């Protein structure tokens, strides 16, 4: 009956398994700047903004001023690409830089304009765009975040399915203040050993951004003086953590399950631009609580024995009661 059945189609016409439609080789060849690229060019080499300023638009501006930056957009594909270039809102929450959807706006993206919104790039072509940030007089003090996006899209399907849009961007960390570079600083509050629920040992550093600039923290951990004089590392801190002024975060290094518990001498170095902080601690990883089968099966065994004992007691009680009743009946008769 047609009303009982709904014919749903995410593709009109061709019904093809998606995997065969996308028969790509499982191991992609080493890509060398494939696709659409975006980069900052001609960054003014002024002090205070740190190495981050080579890849992101990082600056301190007073209200009522403006800056210009140049970005280069490249098409490293074999076909002509239509690229949309635009600023959109972004934010920083709990150490993670997050993007707003589509063309969503915030203060910074409203102040930002690009020279051309749409580019048509032949294969292998590159072009420059000027990004202008006009900070109004009434701009809010503090850190502002946005992204300059270069966006490409597949043609809209004629009959259902998924239209794919890919975009790549340059982050913008803009600090609005009355003048003078606000100091950047951070501190490692503690360095401890923990164990993940899945059993992997973790080294956790608690860090706090005590300065007034946004930080991008990366670093490494080295373990030494372990059991039998073992050394291990350096292990990278993953992922690199973005931290807003005043915020705290946990920087985690995930290690291999087979690593001995210790004690170890843990040496962690963390860096954000020119600021380098190190912490040293003697740590021992907590014992791996075997949550899986052994504990579970012994618990089942105990439960089984308990059930058996209870049923035995019930049976004994029933037997006693029936005997008592029989004795009473016998006495009555």
């Amino acid at each position, binding site marked *: 009956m047609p*009303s*009982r*059945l*709904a*014919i*749903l*189609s*995410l*593709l*009109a016409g*061709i*019904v*093809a398994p*998606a*995997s065969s*439609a*996308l028969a790509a080789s499982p*191991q*992609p060849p080493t*890509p060398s*700047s*494939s*696709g*659409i*690229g975006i*980069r900052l*060019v*001609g*960054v003014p*080499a002024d002090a205070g903004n740190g*190495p981050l300023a*080579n*890849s992101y638009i990082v600056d301190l501006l007073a209200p009522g001023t403006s800056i210009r930056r140049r970005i280069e957009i490249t098409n*490293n594909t074999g076909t002509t*690409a239509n690229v949309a270039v635009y600023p959109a809102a972004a934010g920083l929450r709990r150490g*993670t*830089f*997050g*993007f707003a*959807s589509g063309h969503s706006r915030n203060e910074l993206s409203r102040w930002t304009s690009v020279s051309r919104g749409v580019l048509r790039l032949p294969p292998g072509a590159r072009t420059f765009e000027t990004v202008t940030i006009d900070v109004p007089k009434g701009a809010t003090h503090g850190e502002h975040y946005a*992204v300059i*996006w270069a966006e490409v*899209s*597949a*043609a*809209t*399907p004629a009959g*259902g*399915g*998924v*239209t*794919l849009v*890919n975009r*790549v*961007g*340059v982050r913008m960390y803009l600090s609005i203040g009355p003048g003078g570079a606000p100091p950047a600083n951070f501190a490692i509050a503690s360095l401890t050993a923990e164990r993940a629920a899945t059993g992997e040992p973790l080294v956790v550093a608690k860090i706090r951004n005590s300065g007034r600039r946004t930080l991008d923290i*990366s670093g490494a951990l080295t373990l030494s003086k372990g059991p039998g004089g073992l050394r291990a590392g350096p292990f*990278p801190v993953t*992922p*690199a953590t973005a931290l807003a002024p005043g915020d705290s975060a946990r920087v985690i290094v995930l290690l291999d399950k087979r690593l001995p518990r210790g004690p170890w001498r843990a040496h962690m170095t963390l860096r954000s631009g020119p600021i380098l902080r190190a912490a040293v601690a003697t740590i021992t990883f907590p014992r791996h609580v075997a949550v899986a089968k052994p504990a579970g099966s012994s618990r089942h065994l105990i439960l089984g024995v308990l059930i058996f004992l209870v049923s035995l007691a019930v049976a004994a009680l029933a037997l006693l009661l029936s005997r008592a009743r029989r004795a009473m009946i016998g006495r009555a008769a």
Partner: protein
Amino acid sequence: MRKYLLLASTFATLALAASLPASAADTPITFTLDAGALSISVPTASVPLGSSQVASASSHTFSGLLGTVTVTDDRGGTHAWVASVISTAFTGDAAQTAVAALNVHYVPGTITVSGVVATTPVTTNLTGVSPVVNGTSTGLAWASWNPTVSVVVPAGAAAGTYSATITHSVA
């Protein structure tokens, strides 16, 4: 050749003068190398997820591979990047009820990397911009994955052709 140049860009500004003993005769030599680009592959075609005859009494899941997404990071040095995904609702061709992005799920699958430490945060659905791959690049690096997207079409959905837009954002 280009690789070496780009590798040099790790140190975007090398002030050689700083490492030399300062004296009046010294000429400070400074040079600036621009960092390379951050790139994302270009989607070549829209992705069909198949069609199916579904009983209106039960829900049905459509799924398929979206095609390889490659992020190339030639910026040099250590850089973090985030790849996020958002989906619109799947809308039908007539005045039909749309399948909300709440019912769209994304699994990055195996991530092939070179010079990237990648982690995959847990993503429940694609209603908001959801981070799906967190990457930390060291030097010239790339990461590549072929995600699987699945759409749960609820029971009682109207027949028709549905389409949506899925956006990858990398910065």
